[in-house]
């Protein structure tokens, strides 16, 4: 639709905001690309809500261990320094504010940081919430990674969510194919956007009022393989 960032580039950009030593939980979809862009020499501790800390990359095809799965129920690995625990302890980590960053996908994010990402509200599927609501309100910082607009062009960043909510005022930063936007007390603040589009164009493609951050800079991502 535009010359916006690829899905890998969105994940790359989000990965730049993850500091060494951070404990990070990744939702399904775009966030799962983040670990590919964490340099090997930067230690980040990945949490999987089904009871793992220090999760490594997905298991190689010939080394699948079905007793060692991730939150997406796929075989994964555990790094040295990892640990296992039960669900109440795992969600104590989440609910208790011990996860530094949770990166989630979104159907909609509102101007005050409300998130809708669990139920399309169309009655076509059994709604499945999983751990989304706990993660949305529990993590210290919530990143949302999303295409700026839905396939039909509808903005995903909106004044008020029309879809069933996941959490109230929980999103801190939004990474899209066009921009990086902070949710602040005064509203949505664009800290970065592509130089190939104007602020006005970005505003036109957004369903809520934006302001440009005083420390705005251009959104730049390296070319990435496999896109």
């Amino acid at each position: 639709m535009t010359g916006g960032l690829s899905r890998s580039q969105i994940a790359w950009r989000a990965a730049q905001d993850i500091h060494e030593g951070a404990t990070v939980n990744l939702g399904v979809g775009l966030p799962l690309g983040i670990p590919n862009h964490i340099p090997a020499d930067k230690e980040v501790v990945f949490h999987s809500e089904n009871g793992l800390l220090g999760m490594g990359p997905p298991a190689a095809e010939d080394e699948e261990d079905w007793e060692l799965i991730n939150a997406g129920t796929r075989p994964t690995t555990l790094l040295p320094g990892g640990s296992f625990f039960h669900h109440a302890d795992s969600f104590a980590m989440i609910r208790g504010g011990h996860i530094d960053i949770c990166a989630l996908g979104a159907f909609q994010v509102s101007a005050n940081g409300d998130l809708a990402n669990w139920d399309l509200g169309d009655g076509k599927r059994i709604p499945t919430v999983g751990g989304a609501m706990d993660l949305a309100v529990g993590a210290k910082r919530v990143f949302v990674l999303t295409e700026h607009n839905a396939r039909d062009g509808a903005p995903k960043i909106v004044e008020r969510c029309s879809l069933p909510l996941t959490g109230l005022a929980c999103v801190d930063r939004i990474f899209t194919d066009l921009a990086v936007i902070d949710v602040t007390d005064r509203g949505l603040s664009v800290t970065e956007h592509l130089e190939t589009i104007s602020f006005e164009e970005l505003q036109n493609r957004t369903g809520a009022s934006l302001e440009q951050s005083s420390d705005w800079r251009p959104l730049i991502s390296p070319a990435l393989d496999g896109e």
Partner: protein
Amino acid sequence: MINKQVQDMAAALDGLDDGAVILAGGFGDAGVPNDLLHALSGLHLKNLTLVGNGAISERIGHGKLIDSGAVSTYIASFPCAPHAKLFDPGTPTADVALEIVPQGTLAERIRAAGAGIPGFFTKTSAGTPLGEGKETREFSGALHVFETAIKADIALIKAKRADRWGNLVYAKACRNFNPIMAMAAKTTIVQVEEIVELGGIDPELVVTPGIFVDRIVVIETPFTAQDLS
């Protein structure tokens, strides 16, 4: 002498009755007590309330018990994987009442039951459809909802190893809901791959102390989703 091992599935499931509230462990297919659930499916009970994270297929585990017609209510965070033939209009399980609970709230409500806490407040689900109708209260300026303990008659648990006192250890990601469910039921029934002699489990390594376990049945080679193919 304390010996919680029972000889077979019939003894493990003895006394279960229509209308029971049943906790069943597992996440995905890891730690799901498939063999207990399949044996329970064969008992043709009715009106069970089943509590667990979710079903991955109508052919195994939680899904198989539900599909057998024994379950009238399923309390879950992720009731069913996308391709499972469950709950949809036109399927045999369309009438099962679903109570969707956020995964962490589900875990905490179960742990609360085991710990003798009748209710607690949490921020999770406040202001969302899943928080509707719940008592609310503000703490530190944030809206919270009141959640109550989920007490059960029976817990069906899968562990790796036990001793005759019922001490349990699990494998890797197979703990998930099992240790907290073991605490929260009147009768906790466990399937394990092996029983070791008393003292054979390092006391520092016990995850579920025997106090929470009532019956143990040995299933050396548990049924898993890999057996479906």
